[in-house]
């Protein structure tokens, strides 16, 4: 085979892979958006909406872990921040907060924690309550759900990556940080309602339309958001910046010697990933109607990583599907009578199996499959081409 032929073949392989890739994305988005046409059970729509949110977390993990090589064991921090920011706004819209009149909302737990005789107004019912004042505007809470994770992630990642901390050390720092913030949120009970979290929330309201979580419209909000995030993430990793990011993952020193400020790329993508997690937190609160410090449990953050590993850490859509799949399996197993007490064994077993036998997760299997089909096609194609060339020569 001559040089020219191999070169065309590799081009063909890439073209085919790209086509297969886009086909999978299109199919996934079509299924997600089309689901309400098939499923008319509002409970299942709501449940799947929650899992789609977890799918978004999978995307965030794949972006930082798969593409940037940064394992963030504290992704729950950004999810939690997003959730709390959203919940603060929605809390101020709930009936119990508005009982003193619509211009003077105060969360019920603040009344409850208040010192006797305190002014029952957000400004000064307790020391930190003024922080809630801007959250009376719903758009503010929604914006902060993304902005605050972005800012926190930017500050955090700037210090980590400028100091060239890498690998497991990043994982440990993020882990310690999520523990720290969780502790502080539980302790700051007068303004966060502590361990119980923020519950009894109003519904997301956009131009007068209230998004009841058990409504197909709410499902569409989540599914649409996921589709947008997925495509945005796909675009990001396809850009030159995405390619350069992957190069910094492989060999940061080489990337530096090519003139790239490696830390800047790491900070950028780490921050984006945190923003996505924050957005996921926002949507989760819309679908589940509460925010809780348990969002910042270590177990939850590690679970996210496992979802991404099951789906394929190097693939945004793989990690996304992995998250949705694992949660569906968990729910189904735990609701099946014979597995009622044994479902955790199954989940644990799946994790072990995936790490041992599917190091690239579902996406890896899909890729192998596509490659195999492709090789067959190319082989056939080459044969015809060679045959044609032979004929011409003859």
């Amino acid at each position, binding site marked *: 085979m001559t040089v020219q032929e191999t070169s065309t073949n590799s081009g063909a392989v890439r073209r085919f892979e790209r086509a297969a890739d886009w086909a999978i994305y299109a199919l996934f988005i079509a299924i997600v958006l089309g689901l309400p046409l098939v499923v008319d*059970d*509002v*409970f*299942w729509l*709501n*449940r799947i909406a*929650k899992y789609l949110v977890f799918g978004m977390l999978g995307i965030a993990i794949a972006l930082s872990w798969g593409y940037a090589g940064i394992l963030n064991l504290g992704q729950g921090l950004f999810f939690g921040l997003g959730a709390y920011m959203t919940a603060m706004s929605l809390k101020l819209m709930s009936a119990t907060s508005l*009982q*003193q009149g619509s211009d003077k909302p105060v969360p*019920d737990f603040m*009344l*409850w*924690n208040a010192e006797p005789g305190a002014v029952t107004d957000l400004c000064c019912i307790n020391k930190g309550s003024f922080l809630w004042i801007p959250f009376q505007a719903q758009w503010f809470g929604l914006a902060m759900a993304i902005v605050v994770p972005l800012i926190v992630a930017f500050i955090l990642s700037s210090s980590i990556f400028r100091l060239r901390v890498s690998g497991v050390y990043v994982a440990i720092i993020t882990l310690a940080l999520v523990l720290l913030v969780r*502790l502080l949120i*539980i*302790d700051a*009970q007068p303004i966060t*309602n*502590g*361990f*119980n*979290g923020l*519950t*009894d*929330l109003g519904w997301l309201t956009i131009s007068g339309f209230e998004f*009841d979580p*058990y409504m197909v419209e709410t499902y569409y909000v989540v599914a649409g958001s996921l589709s947008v995030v997925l495509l945005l993430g796909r675009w990001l990793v396809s850009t030159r910046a995405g390619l350069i990011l992957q190069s910094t993952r492989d060999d940061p020193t080489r990337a530096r010697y090519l003139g790239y400020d490696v830390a800047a790329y790491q900070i950028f993508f780490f921050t984006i990933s945190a923003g996505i997690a924050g957005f996921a937190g926002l949507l989760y609160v819309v679908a*589940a*109607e*509460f925010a*809780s410090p*348990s*969002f910042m*449990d270590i177990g*939850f953050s590690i679970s996210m990583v496992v979802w991404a590993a099951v789906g394929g850490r190097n693939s945004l859509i793989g990690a996304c599907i992995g998250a949705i799949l694992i949660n569906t399996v968990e*729910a*189904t197993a*735990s*609701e*099946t*009578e*014979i*597995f*009622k*007490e044994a*479902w*955790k064994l199954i989940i644990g077993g799946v994790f072990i199996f995936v790490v041992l036998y599917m190091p690239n997760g579902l996406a890896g299997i899909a890729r192998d499959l596509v490659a195999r089909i492709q090789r067959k096609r190319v082989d056939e194609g080459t044969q015809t081409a060679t045959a044609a060339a032979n004929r011409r020569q003859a």
Partner: protein
Amino acid sequence: MKTNRRNFLKQSTAFGAAAALGPSLYAGAARASGEIEVGILFSLTGGLSIIEKSLADATMMAIDEINAAGGVNGMTIKPILEDGASDPKTFNEKASKLVIRDRLQTVFGSYTSASRKAVLPVFEKRNSLYFYPTYYEGFECSKNVVYTGAVPNQQLSNFIPWIINTLGKKKFFIVGSNYIYPREMAKVSKILIEQHGGEWIADEYLELGHSEWGAMVSKIKESGCDVVLSNVVGDSVVAFYREFKNQGLTHDKLPICATVTSEIEIAAMGPEFAVGSYTSFPYFQAIDTDRNRAFIERYRKYVNDPNAVTHHALESSYFQVYLWKQAVEKAGDISADAVREGIKGQVFEAPNGTVTVDPENLHTYLTPRIAQWGADGQGTIIDEYKEPIEPLPYVAYGETPDNLFCKGTGLDTAKL
């Protein structure tokens, strides 16, 4: 027919196969005639399953007993058990499954306030009833929850005066886990302590689930207090009592008076660490009545463990099913609205004595008791109210029997 729970699991394998086929199929199949479906929602896995599993067992036992005795209005109760997995997220999801998909009107469940708060929106916005069996901090007035555990005034209103007057202890060191229940208990305690001429010299908290008590016990030792009021929850309790003894403190000089330490924690720490300390609860395993002894025996047989202990939340999990049954029978309907109306003022002879559901706030009249722990891991009841007392979920804010904040019509916020 009397089935124990293990058998129940085996029998339901057949249902399990059907359930695996598809969710909707299962719901349809189970909704056969002559059955009432109710939900049970406790953690069967995760950290809280230690206690919540026993609550699920007690609920199941009551259901089995009722079914064996002919059911409710001739219909069999069919429980649908879900696992909250010790995680508020899962509780929320399972609650919406039970209420929205299975369309259940009644669910028995939750141990922690955090899990109750996470499921509450589902019950309130879909108008179903949640039966909550655990002592809790109060400050809740939901028409969708029936509360059968104690609220602060039912644990403290006899306890604090008794400590000050009978024990003669006046300087309180208040210690608790860092969340709402202990903080609220502390708030009510402080009011009562001051009313009765005592003083509190510290109010300290430790992370929930934390088990390192060295520094705290050392502080207690240095503080000059003469009694410790403990609102510590869960497995931290064990570490606390052990450290207390290891640092040379004894309950005869400096007693721990607890609001949460139950038979479970005592058994877990080893009774020698708690000998001489006190707890206030409406129910103790040691309650010396035939009804309670029979209850304990049935429970032990049911869970196939001759040493199983019973405790307050467990007993409430048990009797609240009966309260529900009576309410259904009275209302003649299983809808949440009918049961809510039916359960108001409902009376039942529970293992701890007579319990009555308050018609206004849907909390339960209970009899406060104080027990001193002995070397056998059982309490000796040394003080008890003559009659059940009225539940006042807003007692910390000045609620009195004559001036209720939470009424059938809802919460009167002007009074807060």
